[in-house]
């Protein structure tokens, strides 16, 4: 039963070796493979080839496209350096002003020197999210490995920065001096736990949101194969897609503003 369904999924699995099985299972009814879109595949060679750390994969392709898109949005549009901006240049300036103001508002004036790093994070996440919305695209930010790296980078950078700037006074972040003395050790335990949970929630929030939306679209897409409910299915895909457009931006925004908040803790650890 499961094997039959899996054979049918070869149409989405892009595995030419199983083409015969796919033809055999084409009339097999509903086929659900919502997670196949998250598979990592080598760009060249056969689908079953092993993936080494240096192998160019679909991850590489879509990360490369994200780099090109960022280059187009931020560099090509501003090449005229017009005082009165074109539409493209307005977008670049808007992105710049949006993140610059966020960094300045959340972390204060002394956080502005970390603006390029935060801008890198934001541009990468927002562009990768939106590219992932293209049909048949691969979404790097739906992978926990990707978001965990981002979140751990933020966590380690912020923690090291806090100790470098403030030494052991950085631990004052966990010692709530505003609370009554007997409560402080308990609060310190809670604060420390919440501090170390940060990278976990930071990364799973982004990957989970991206994965869930894409998987739901795929589930609705499978229902479109049944004629009776196809219109509802397609309407639902359109609706979820609209929601995903919103989520793509909001998750990038949330990730970036949380990074700013963590950075603020490193710069000003006092409660």
């Amino acid at each position: 039963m499961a094997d039959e369904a899996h054979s049918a999924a070869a149409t989405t699995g892009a595995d030419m070796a199983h083409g015969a099985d796919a033809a055999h299972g084409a009339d097999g009814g509903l086929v659900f493979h919502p997670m196949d879109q998250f598979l990592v595949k080598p760009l060249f060679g056969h689908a079953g080839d092993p993936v080494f750390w240096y192998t160019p994969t679909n991850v590489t392709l879509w990360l490369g496209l994200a780099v090109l898109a960022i280059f187009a949005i931020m560099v090509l549009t501003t090449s005229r350096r017009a005082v009165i901006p074109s539409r493209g240049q307005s977008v670049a300036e808007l992105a710049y002003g949006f993140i610059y103001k966020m960094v300045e508002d959340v972390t204060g004036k002394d956080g502005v020197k970390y603006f390029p790093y935060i801008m890198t994070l934001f541009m990468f996440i927002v562009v990768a999210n939106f590219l992932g919305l293209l049909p048949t695209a691969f979404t790097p930010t739906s992978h926990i490995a990707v978001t965990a790296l981002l979140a751990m980078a933020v966590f380690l950078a912020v923690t090291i920065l806090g100790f470098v700037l403030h030494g052991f006074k950085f631990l004052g972040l966990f010692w709530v001096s505003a609370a009554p003395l007997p409560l402080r050790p308990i609060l310190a335990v809670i604060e420390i736990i919440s501090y170390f949970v940060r990278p976990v929630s930071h990364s799973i929030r982004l990957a989970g949101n991206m994965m869930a939306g894409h998987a739901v679209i795929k589930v609705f897409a499978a229902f479109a194969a049944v004629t009776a409910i196809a219109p509802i299915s397609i309407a639902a895909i359109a609706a979820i897609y609209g929601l995903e457009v919103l989520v793509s931006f909001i998750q990038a925004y949330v990730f970036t503003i949380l990074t700013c908040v963590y950075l603020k803790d490193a710069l000003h650890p006092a409660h």
Partner: protein
Amino acid sequence: MATEPIDLEVAGTCTDAAGSAIGMPQLCDAWFGNQIFWLLVTLVVIYFILSRIALPRIAAILAERQGTITNNIAAAEDLKAKAHEAEAAYDQALADARAEAGRIIDAAKAEMKADLDVAIKKADAEIAERTAEGEKAIAEIREGALAAVKDVAKDTAKELIVALGGTADARTVTAAVNARMKG
């Protein structure tokens, strides 16, 4: 209906025989190295694109625009001040012109009045002279008339006396006439 076989033993290979995902591809640790490596490359490239090219350029554009706006506002303020100055100058000129006109009017009035006074004085003098002449003539005429009346009265009195048969004593008649004329 296919139910995903979540077999953790097989999940090590991440895909089944048909090339479909087993469980969540996100948890397939065989692919972590690949994703992390390419992500690091990507982030470094993006960082250099942004920090070396895009961000300084956009900052320069925004600064230039801010400068242009500031300059234009300053120029506008300047022009506004100039307009105020011009208006003040215009008002001043208007006030000066009004004062000048008033002065000219006063001067003309004074001149006209002086001319008029001279003419009036001259006319008054002429009138007085004429009046004096007239009065003199009237007095002469009246005197002449009195003398004539006296002569006529004397002659008439003499003739009457003669007609009545008396002798006309010239001295008496004259005395009588004079007495009558006085009365």
